[in-house]
């Protein structure tokens, strides 16, 4: 608005005391380490000022805070038996690596020692139970003349591994196939699935890399073999100098440097425009040590914050990370299309009846049996299409739906999670009135950006059989691909429908990650919404490992949350249940007991 006064969040600085409380007493993120540091600072200052002897050691982990060294925070760790030491030998980032030493201890054994003749990285294990602390410190101080960093087990993620030595490539192929089959079934929104094997850490048990496309973005991920199956590999990511979180080794791009057992993973944060990138070292037991990291909070080396961006335009952290990245010989993975291979074998008639490997190429998944192919053809042909063309069970939605009557009793019908949405008791509502309200929804829709407001469509469906159809909106967004929303009519306008969830001690009216009051839709899903009017049910399917949310809309627009099964929380009837195969099976059985319908969307114009 021309001539308007500018306002920013900095206006909140120097607020009066009441506002300060409102702004933030409970909103900040003070973790235990920060609390302990501040308590120690307090006691030290108090002791100094009062002359009173206060035992600062009484403060837990009080000795963790160590003075900054050369502008870098260093933490002295009390449990050096678990330490990784990383010593770097030059001020320049590239040279830091070139002269570095990586002392590592994890399931130590002599064969875990890897010496690099080029002197670029030397990895040495330290024997369990030895007096590792002085040795490590001594090595660091003698080998390095510049920065010296300590990393403890907080920055290592132990991953699944196996000590079996009888593993064949056929076995790995079978495990790969099982993983990809499941992936293709679970994640209806992805397509172009490819795979590659590479033994990054030279343990003779190749890691599995997968690559896929999905709406808006693609992705790559690394998996490790546990002796039976391929499992997601994890690493520790620095959120700040005081905090880490564990993430999957997965991102927009993965490159590898097998000669140094390194994996590079990078993703663009589409909100901040900043790349989250890591260089991860993988030991022979698949433990992932985060050697270098770049994210929106700064550039980290060995878990220690080296520099943080002064402002949004500050490229120093990026440049530091890039310098390290460029010092390695990175390889792109050579992927093999998963679907193409299956189809090729079908066409050539190369099939067997056992499901065992019949390929000459040991790096390719086994071929499916004819029965398997026949059984899966219907779904696989749909796999690479957009999420909205399928339902959760993988059944082509507008081809057929199925009802497993024998499972009818598995569906629970009530819930402790109830949300009362706006509704009306009017009986004189006309379709023309609803259409006018629908048009107002579009006019007031929140996606006003030219690039985002694409292809908006609508559908009516009377899910709760109250004679007033609910409105469903579908649109394409650059960031999330197709999203869908559900709105209910209150007698005057359509409003976003809400459901209730108590999500890990934080109560949400909706947890789908997107709501925008007024006339936007609170039920908004980055995937697909299916309905079962017969039982007044709605299935929100957001893809991934998430089986979604199963809701029941009763008359009066009362929404009950029957099931939720997501990667981090599962609820059944409004009661939290553990995430395990049995829970998933119950949810899947509940889904399978219903006749799901695809919404038939129409263009607004």
């Amino acid at each position, binding site marked *: 608005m021309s001539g308007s006064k500018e*306002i920013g969040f900095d206006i909140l600085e120097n607020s009066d*005391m009441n506002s300060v409380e409102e*702004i933030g*007493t*409970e909103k900040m993120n003070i973790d235990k380490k920060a609390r302990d540091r501040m308590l120690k600072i307090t006691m030290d200052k*108090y002791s100094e000022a009062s002359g009173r002897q206060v035992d600062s050691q009484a403060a837990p982990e009080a000795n963790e805070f160590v003075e900054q060294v050369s502008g870098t925070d260093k933490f002295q760790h009390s449990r050096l038996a678990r330490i990784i030491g990383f010593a770097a030998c030059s001020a320049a980032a590239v040279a830091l690596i070139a002269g570095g030493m990586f002392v590592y201890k994890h399931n130590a054994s002599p064969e875990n020692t890897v010496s690099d003749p080029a002197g670029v990285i030397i990895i040495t294990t330290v024997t369990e139970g030895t007096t590792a602390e002085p040795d490590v410190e001594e090595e660091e101080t003698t080998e390095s003349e510049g920065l010296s960093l300590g990393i403890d087990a907080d920055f290592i993620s132990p991953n699944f591994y196996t000590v079996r030595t009888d593993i064949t490539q056929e076995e790995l192929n079978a495990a790969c196939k099982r993983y990809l089959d499941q992936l293709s079934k679970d994640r209806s929104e992805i397509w172009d699935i490819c795979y590659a094997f590479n033994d990054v850490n030279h343990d003779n048990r190749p890691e599995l890399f997968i690559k896929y496309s999905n709406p808006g973005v693609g992705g790559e991920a690394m998996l490790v073999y546990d002796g039976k199956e391929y499992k997601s590999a994890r690493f520790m990511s620095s959120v700040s100098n005081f905090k880490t979180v564990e993430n999957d080794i997965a991102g927009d791009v993965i490159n590898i440097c097998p000669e140094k057992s390194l994996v590079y993973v990078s993703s663009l944060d589409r909100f901040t425009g900043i790349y989250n990138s890591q260089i991860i070292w993988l030991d022979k037991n698949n433990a992932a040590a985060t050697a270098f990291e770049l994210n929106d909070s700064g550039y980290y080396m060995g878990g220690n914050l080296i520099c943080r961006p002064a402002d949004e335009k500050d490229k120093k952290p990026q440049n530091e990370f890039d310098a390290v990245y460029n010092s390695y010989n990175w390889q792109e993975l050579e992927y093999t299309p998963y679907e193409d291979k299956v189809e090729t074998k079908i066409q050539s008639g190369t099939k067997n009846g056992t499901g065992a490997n019949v390929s000459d190429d040991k790096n390719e998944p086994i071929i499916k049996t004819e029965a398997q192919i026949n059984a899966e053809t219907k779904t696989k042909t749909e796999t690479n299409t957009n999420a909205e063309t399928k339902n959760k069970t993988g059944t082509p939605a507008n081809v057929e739906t199925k009802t497993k009557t024998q499972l009818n009793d598995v569906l629970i019908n009530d819930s402790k999670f109830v949300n009362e949405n706006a509704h009306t008791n009017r009986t004189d509502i006309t379709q023309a009135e609803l259409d006018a309200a629908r048009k107002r929804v579009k006019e007031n829709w929140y996606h*006003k950006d030219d690039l985002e407001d694409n292809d908006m469509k609508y559908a009516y469906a009377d899910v709760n059989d109250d004679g007033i159809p609910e409105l469903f909106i579908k649109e394409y967004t650059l960031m999330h691909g197709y999203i869908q929303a559900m709105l209910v009519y209150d007698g005057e306008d359509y409003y976003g429908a809400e459901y209730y969830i108590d999500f*890990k001690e934080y109560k949400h009216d909706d947890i789908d990650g*997107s709501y925008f009051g007024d006339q936007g839709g609170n039920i908004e899903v980055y995937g697909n919404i299916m309905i079962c009017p017969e039982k007044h049910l709605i299935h929100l399917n957001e893809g991934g490992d998430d089986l979604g949310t199963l809701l029941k809309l009763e008359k009066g627009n009362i929404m009950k949350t029957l099931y939720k099964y997501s990667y981090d929380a599962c609820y059944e009837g409004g009661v939290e249940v553990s995430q395990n195969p049995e829970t998933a099976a119950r949810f899947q059985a509940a889904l399978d007991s219903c006749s799901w319908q695809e919404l038939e969307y129409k263009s607004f114009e």
Partner: protein
Amino acid sequence: MTDNEYRGMYEKDPYSAQTSLFDEYLNYVYAIVYNKLRSCGSREDMEECVGDVFSAVFLHYDRNGSFNGDLKALIGTIASRTAVQKYRSLMRHGNTVYINDETGELADDERLEEKTERSVMQGTLLRLIKSLGEPDSDIILQKYYYNMNSIEIADKHSMSPETVRMRCSRALKKLKTLLMAEGYDMKEGNI
């Protein structure tokens, strides 16, 4: 915690009493300190300042034998004054001369007018942020005022970072719209 409760605890175990008081008021003190030092101090500066505040609070009790009334108000006052001192110290070290003291600010009519206008703007922004509803109001403040990244926010709210980004994006758009209706434009540099 009341004055009497603290005294009772202190008589039994001074360290436990101080730790309890520290834990009860840490968020409050940190919020005040952050509010003053946000634009000029690092996280380490703020933690140092928090230490100064609690140290001063403990010393105050030692000297007076009580907190004389409203403990929270006393801690708030000490925190605010300590943070202002720290702010001035940081500004001096940053080669910026701090020329206005609080008396000077209040004596100047123009500055008083500025302060009033600022207060109105603060109130407006807070009101509109609050109108976004939970958890979006929290997320917006954490992202843009406390400069927490989406991973930190996600951890605090038990959401995925992706969800946080999406909510944040939507809430910011709504906030901009609400501000425009009140005659304000969101400063681009503050987003």
